[in-house]
């Protein structure tokens, strides 16, 4: 299987245009929201899903309401357009306005405005005590955030790059994930640990790590990955309001995505997957930046006559097996496209989960396209081959749908 994929990459490179990589498929987004409405409303048998949609008294979580409003905003233009990092900032600012316990800590988040400008302007508005510039000591300030959370504060801990948070792994695994359990429920740790990760533009191996796999086994945490300005803001707000520790994975190359989002307040569900493009032939599961590679491949696939169903899983821990399962039952074929490492990655866990739970519904083995198990090289061409490219996705779909 590996040989075939490489072969595909080699032939496709000549037609490959790296500049088009991260262009979002705008045409799909309004359709995405209406499909989201179908999922939430149609989830009849699963009582938990019902409780999910009416969780917040403000009805902000009722995606159905948002979906209808979003459609009108998309057509009548009552939303506002912004970039993904601005959406994150908006979400963070709204939550900080709403709850005085929310504070941000990280390197250069305050006066510098954040290395990716997510916290720009917040220090001026909220002061140094709520937007804390820490020295470079990930272990200590992550531990501090967790200690503060034990007393009831809600810190948002920013790692300048997710790779740096490896230095704080002990605090994240042992204290953040486990304290609620080992204290018998006495302490809750409502932290949000966020930061950019993933392969960027020739940033070198140590700054281009895909670490969702490292964190996914930690018991007690939730992991989400945002991919559009809409879900970035929604997930940020949901993560801050959640009583559980949440790790929010952003992607370095997605910060400048532009989209129109609603003016009114909304939150995305932390455990729910997003239906990007409904289809009939094959389910493609993806998240974060690979969503855009998949959508690009989808264009090619549609031209070739295939009808892929694209789901952005968003919630990396726990998986939204409800949405995924329904899709598998419909299409009977699954392709997972991710940027995570091949060994022990999100795709590997998802493959195991799908095989365990939906084996009867599969007509073909679950195929998983992940990035290669190599440190990301510096050379541009090598870096391209490290991650999954749209051409590889097209080839894989063709193989699966034979």
């Amino acid at each position, binding site marked *: 299987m590996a040989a075939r994929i490489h072969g595909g990459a080699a032939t496709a490179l000549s037609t490959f245009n790296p500049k088009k990589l991260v262009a979002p498929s705008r045409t799909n987004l309004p359709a995405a929201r209406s499909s989201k409405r179908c999922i939430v409303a149609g989830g009849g048998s699963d009582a938990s899903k019902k409780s999910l949609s009416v969780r917040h008294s403000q009805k902000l979580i009722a995606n159905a309401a948002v979906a209808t409003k979003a459609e009108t905003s998309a057509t009548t233009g009552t939303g506002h357009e912004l970039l993904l990092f601005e959406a994150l900032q908006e979400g963070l600012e709204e939550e900080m306005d709403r709850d005085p316990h929310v504070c941000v800590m990280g390197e250069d988040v305050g006066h510098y405005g954040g290395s990716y400008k997510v916290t720009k302007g917040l220090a001026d508005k909220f002061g140094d005590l709520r937007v804390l510039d820490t020295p470079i000591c990930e272990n200590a300030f992550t*531990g501090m955030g967790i200690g503060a959370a034990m*007393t009831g504060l809600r810190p948002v801990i920013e790692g300048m790059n997710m790779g740096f948070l490896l230095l704080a792994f002990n605090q994240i695994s042992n204290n953040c994930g486990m304290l609620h359990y*080992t*204290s018998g429920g006495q302490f809750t740790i409502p932290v949000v640990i966020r930061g950019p990760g993933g392969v960027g533009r020739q940033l070198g191996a140590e700054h281009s790590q895909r670490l969702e796999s490292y964190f996914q086994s930690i018991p007690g945490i939730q992991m989400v990955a945002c991919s559009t300005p809409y879900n970035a803001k929604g997930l940020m707000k949901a993560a801050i309001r959640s009583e559980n520790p949440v790790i929010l994975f952003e992607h370095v190359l997605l910060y400048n995505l532009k989209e129109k989002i609603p003016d009114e307040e909304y939150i995305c569900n932390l455990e729910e997957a997003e239906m990007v493009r409904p289809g009939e032939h094959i389910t493609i599961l993806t998240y974060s930046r690979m969503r855009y590679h998949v959508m690009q491949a989808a264009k090619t696939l549609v031209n070739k006559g295939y009808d892929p169903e694209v789901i952005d899983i968003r919630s990396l821990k726990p998986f939204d097996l409800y949405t995924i399962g329904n899709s598998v039952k419909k299409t009977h074929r699954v392709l997972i496209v991710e940027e995570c490492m091949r060994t022990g990655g999100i795709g590997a866990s998802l493959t195991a*989960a799908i095989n365990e739970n939906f084996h009867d519904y599969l007509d073909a083995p679950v195929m998983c396209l992940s990035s290669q198990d190599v440190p990301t090289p510096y050379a541009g061409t090598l870096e391209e081959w490290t991650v999954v490219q749209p051409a590889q996705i097209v080839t894989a779909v063709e193989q699966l749908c034979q």
Partner: protein
Amino acid sequence: MALSRLSLRSNRLLNPSTTTAALPSSLRRHVSTDTTPITIETAVPFESHLCDAPSRSVETSSSEILSFFRDMARMRRMEIAADSLYKSKLIRGFCHLYDGQEALAVGMEAAITRKDAIITSYRDHCTFLGRGGELVDAFSELMGRKRGCSNGKGGSMHFYKKDACFYGGHGIVGAQIPLGCGLAFAQKYSKEEFVTFTLYGDGAANQGQLFEALNIAALWDLPAILVCENNHYGMGTATWRSAKSPAYFKRGDYVPGLKVDGMDALAVKQACKFAKEHALKNGPIVLEMDTYRYHGHSMSDPGSTYRTRDEVSGVRQVRDPIERVRKLLLSHDIATEKELKDMEKEVRKEVDDAVAQAKESPVPEPSELFTNMYVKDCGVESFGADRKELKVTLA
């Protein structure tokens, strides 16, 4: 002078009938609850770094010293009971005992309120007790019963008591130090005038996290007091073999420090009181408590391969915290020898009752395996990343 008075007393004590008849019951009751202040000098002076040491005269009262005795006796008894429970395999895993270091726990409690936070490492049984924890809860947790302070899920190294601001109970050496600075940060954020005591050992004093946290605490003026419980051995490694500079109170460099005789409950009280005032005004301070543990590092360590038995028994004879308080009580006529022995018997009975009660209490249900993984939120059901079976619905 005190010693000569002591010998006179003991001579009188050889004739028990005279002592019990000599003290009328009304006088006995009066003494044990007497709160009139007494001033006592600490035996060992404080050593300071970048600050002025507090005075050696400690203000206390008879009732406080008696409470020291009772609390320390209870802690000592609890640790010895835990020792025998471990040997009879009712306590499994790791069991780190605090006997010898009790003065630290009681002295600290005497100087602070229950709203000041304490966070410590895995040698936490006595600190838990000092914070108001019940003996039954402690023994139940040690034996993995549901009644335990962490519902049996934490074990010896994970005692917590949120309502008394006791934040545990941490297994990884030094990991509690940034947590403690976070607690101090939260106290500063909420603008309440409370402090956090972050306890760590001489072994943890070499962790990088300590210096990272000290830097942040000093930079942001957090009300954090970092207390190094220097019992001279990091598991099997003596301090002179692990630290180039074993003056732990000076290691804060730009942070003031104080070295305290950790076997003297009154000195500990004085130092903690001083530290609290300092932290609220000037930011962090490091306290080094010179203390000693009689047991090995944990129950699986005999404690004699890296130190001689003579050393241990020597410390027990000369510096034992309970004996020191006993001498104080006797020399100041606060209690008689017999009363103290009776108190010890009562404490022993308390501990034995608690052990018996804990032995009877039930183990956690199997469904408890999945409770408290997540807080009830977003309708999360706790059944792992793949939602295979619905184990528990956190309604």
